[in-house]
């Protein structure tokens, strides 16, 4: 029965795609940090969400930008899955997949673009990111924008820390942030 539904679904989605009804393909990937719900749109990766289901607000953003044609499509995320695997195994320092930040505010986009430039293994502060996004007084707003980063890991918001080096916060949990920085060999937040 399950196999039958799976095969029927594959053919259904091929037909829907042919009719131009689908826009975004998603899948749930396994990772050392638990399941990741990932979505790929026409311009690249739109979403990496901690957990096996996306948040309601993230789905609403995708629907606002690309319509309701958001469907399961494991093949579409295979390049991202491969790069994430390599990253978690310490064999990749930069991601080659395209990212798509459509539907975000201009400030949020600037913050995420600035964040994407922080090199592997380094960290920046919220103040530095706010300055690079064009408003050095907006470090709190930069923190808010990073907290709603739709593409964590690939847009490395885990590399942004408080001005005293403290980890401060992370949508995936502080433990996750610590583990990502440990993968990269970044030494922050240590209290001697």
């Amino acid at each position, binding site marked *: *029965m399950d196999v039958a539904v799976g095969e*029927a679904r594959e*053919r*259904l989605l091929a037909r*829907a795609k042919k009719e131009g009804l689908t826009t975004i393909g998603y899948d749930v990937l396994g990772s050392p940090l638990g399941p990741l719900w990932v979505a790929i749109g026409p311009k690249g990766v739109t979403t990496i969400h901690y957990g096996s289901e996306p948040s309601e607000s993230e*789905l609403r953003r995708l629907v606002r930008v690309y319509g309701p*044609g*958001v*469907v*399961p499509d494991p093949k579409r995320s295979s390049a991202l899955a491969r790069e994430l695997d390599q990253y978690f195994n310490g064999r990749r320092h930069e991601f080659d997949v395209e990212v798509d930040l459509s539907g975000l505010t201009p400030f949020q986009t600037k913050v995420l673009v600035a964040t994407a430039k922080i090199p592997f293994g380094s960290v920046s502060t919220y103040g530095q990111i706010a300055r690079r996004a064009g408003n050095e007084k907006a470090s709190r707003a930069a923190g808010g924008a990073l907290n709603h980063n739709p593409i964590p890991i690939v847009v490395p918001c885990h590399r942004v820390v408080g001005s005293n080096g403290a980890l401060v916060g992370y949508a995936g949990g502080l433990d996750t942030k610590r583990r990502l920085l440990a993968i990269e060999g970044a030494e922050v937040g240590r209290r001697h």
Partner: protein
Amino acid sequence: MQNDPLTFGQLLERHERELFAYALRISGQRADAEDLYQDTFLAAFRAWPPPRRGNERAWLYRIATNRAIDRERRAKRVVANVEDLVLAAPERDDVTLADLAGAIETLPAGQRAAFVLRKVQGLPYVEIAVALECTEQAARARVSEALKKVKAAVA
């Protein structure tokens, strides 16, 4: 109750198994059932959005039922899937599933859909009414009429 589905994927993941089972039960053949499942969801995607407030399941059943009836009118042939009728089988040793399937097969398409929606899929009458585009009272009448005919046929 779950929120209204925002995407095709949510609609599929929530309802495709149940609708596929329904398609198998009313069309009887795997290939026909698969066509019915595909046509139902494609029609739903094209007609997006679904009705609000959690009515999308009955809406899908309505699309599937209408398509099954249309198909049958064209093909003049529907065989109920014997193995899947086990849930509807009366507890009598002398009635075989084949007898039951045969009896259901002789029902007009609308009554057969009513019978399967209630006795196999176990839908509440309020949803059967939406699926069959009739009042709840009429849905009850159709199920009861179908049941009477099935009983008479296997008596």
